[in-house]
């Protein structure tokens, strides 16, 4: 009885994983295919990756993506940490909703409203506008991660630090910050990943010369799904997986209190 149920569970979860990862697998496989068409397997090659590194537009897009992700993640880490601490300390009803709304809101809404805002404020569309836009939806992830960490932190630790002679600032820098660090890092990694992968919000807020990798891929796909697209998609996938794994490791350690 229980065994039978276990087998069904295995079967279902395998099916789900196949459904989730088969399309990605196909992209990866064809990125190594020695043919211009995504039709049949001809032979193994790395030449599409070579093409990628000769494509100046692609390289510019990659540089933009990294720049945007780094800046957005860094600023979101700072603001998100403050928001997360405020959310767990002040217990204001509205604050979590305000911080998390951009996370839950449809990207297209966020994109359109930011576009309108930038136009109203006369902010020219470019790297800066994209970074500002990405920060808005990244803050929530850092805030959530930091809030969870705050929740598992014992308030008496701060009191103990004060009791033993630490000023409020010393208690923050010596106790609170190190204990929150895994949460902040995990949140920042998540933010970096989301920024690198974002298409919709970037689409609305980017201008000439601030194209990112997802935008670049989209513009290429409009013509044809070339093996070069497969190659850059594979690279993007690897980076994303790496960062997500790293983030979850930080969170796990954070929860066990071993960092």
């Amino acid at each position, binding site marked *: 009885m229980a065994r039978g149920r276990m087998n069904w569970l295995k079967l279902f979860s395998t099916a789900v994983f196949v459904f989730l990862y088969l399309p990605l697998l196909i992209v990866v496989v064809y990125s190594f295919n020695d043919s211009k068409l995504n039709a049949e397997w001809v032979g193994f090659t790395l030449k599409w990756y070579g093409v990628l590194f000769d494509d100046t537009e692609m390289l510019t897009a990659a540089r933009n993506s990294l720049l945007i992700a780094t800046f957005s993640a860094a600023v979101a880490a700072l603001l998100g940490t403050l928001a997360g601490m405020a959310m767990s300390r002040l217990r204001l009803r509205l604050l979590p909703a305000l911080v998390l709304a951009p996370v839950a809101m449809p990207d297209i809404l966020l994109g359109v409203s930011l576009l309108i805002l930038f136009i109203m404020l006369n902010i020219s569309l470019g790297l800066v506008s994209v970074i500002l836009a990405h920060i808005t939806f990244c803050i929530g992830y850092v805030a959530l991660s930091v809030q969870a960490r705050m929740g598992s932190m014992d308030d008496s630790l701060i009191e103990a*630090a004060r*009791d033993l002679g*630490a000023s409020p600032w010393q208690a923050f820098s010596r106790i609170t910050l190190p204990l929150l660090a895994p949460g902040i890092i995990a949140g920042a990694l998540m933010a970096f990943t989301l920024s690198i992968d974002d298409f919709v919000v970037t689409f609305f807020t980017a201008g000439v010369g601030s194209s990112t990798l997802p935008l670049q891929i989209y513009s290429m796909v409009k013509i044809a799904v070339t093996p070069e697209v497969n190659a850059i998609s594979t690279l993007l996938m690897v980076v994303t997986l790496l960062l997500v794994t790293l983030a979850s490791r930080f969170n796990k350690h954070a929860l066990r209190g071993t960092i």
Partner: protein
Amino acid sequence: MLEIRGISKKFGDFEALKGVDLHIGAGEFFTLLGPSGCGKTTLLRMIAGFEAPDSGEILLEGKDMVGTPPEQRPVHTVFQNYALFPHMTVAQNIAFPLQMARVQADEIDARVQQALDNVHLPDKAGAYPAALSGGQRQRIAIARALVKRPRLLLLDEPLSALDAKMREQMQIELINLQKEVGITFIYVTHDQGEALALSHRIAVMNQGKIAQLDQPAQLYNHPNSRFVADFIGQCNLLEATVTDSDRHHADLELHHIGPVRVSLAPAVTVTKGQRCLLTLRPEKIRIARNLHALVDETHFCGKIHDTLYLGDVTVYKVELAQGILLEALLANSGNHASERFAVGDSVEVAWNSSAGHLIAEP
């Protein structure tokens, strides 16, 4: 060294402390004892500086502490859950207060080692708190709180998370440690046994007020109220009316039981006709099938209502009159079969006139 004058504190509408006065001497092991919720932690947090009183003064060696932040008070706390910093090693935890005080690095090392030796954990310097047992964490928390030599050490139910064996051992260590370092301890507990074992003086608290402040033996033998008598140890409380009294003795009529004579503690005065409570500790009552009443003893007859075998002693509840039970203890020291009674047996109980203590109830 510490003087607390008229401290009151409200949380919303709830009065947590209602005018507390205390005077604690240098080098004293002082305990705040009371049931959960009576305001012990609130008072301790005020001394530490985490809570401000609504009114009243806290004078430490003559200086008013109210308004001084915790880090500037020469007072350290051992928290109930230890509050060791999880991301620091034991040595780093103990070094923390010294670093905050900008002590030289090489002096810090020496003092940390000394502190570890004092709590008998010399080789745990590199361990993280997560790798320590409850008793070890307790010792490290105490070492950390003592390393800077505070004028006053506050301990909030520090042993409550330990098992019974460990607790007893830690009690002995605490007594010895306090003697060694000579620092004033203010100890909070709801465990009356712990308070009696550790303290020089105890303040029994009830609902935000101090019910009685005395030395342990005084508190145990001469409780001043029904609450204190009940809270500290097992106690028989018999209602009575005074029929006659002089400076040293009172003759009472125990309601439904009969007349009895008690000697009066110096602080107690009663007048004829006054209603009062006679407190009698179970271990001070003699119980046998046939008692030969001694001089100065009163004896009554009763029936065994319940027996409770506790290993070292057996508790007998003796019904003296309809619905009036008296608890008596008998040590199970020998194999005297004649000393064992069964439910329903007729027995006699007796106590010395100085065994009981009188509480004048208004």
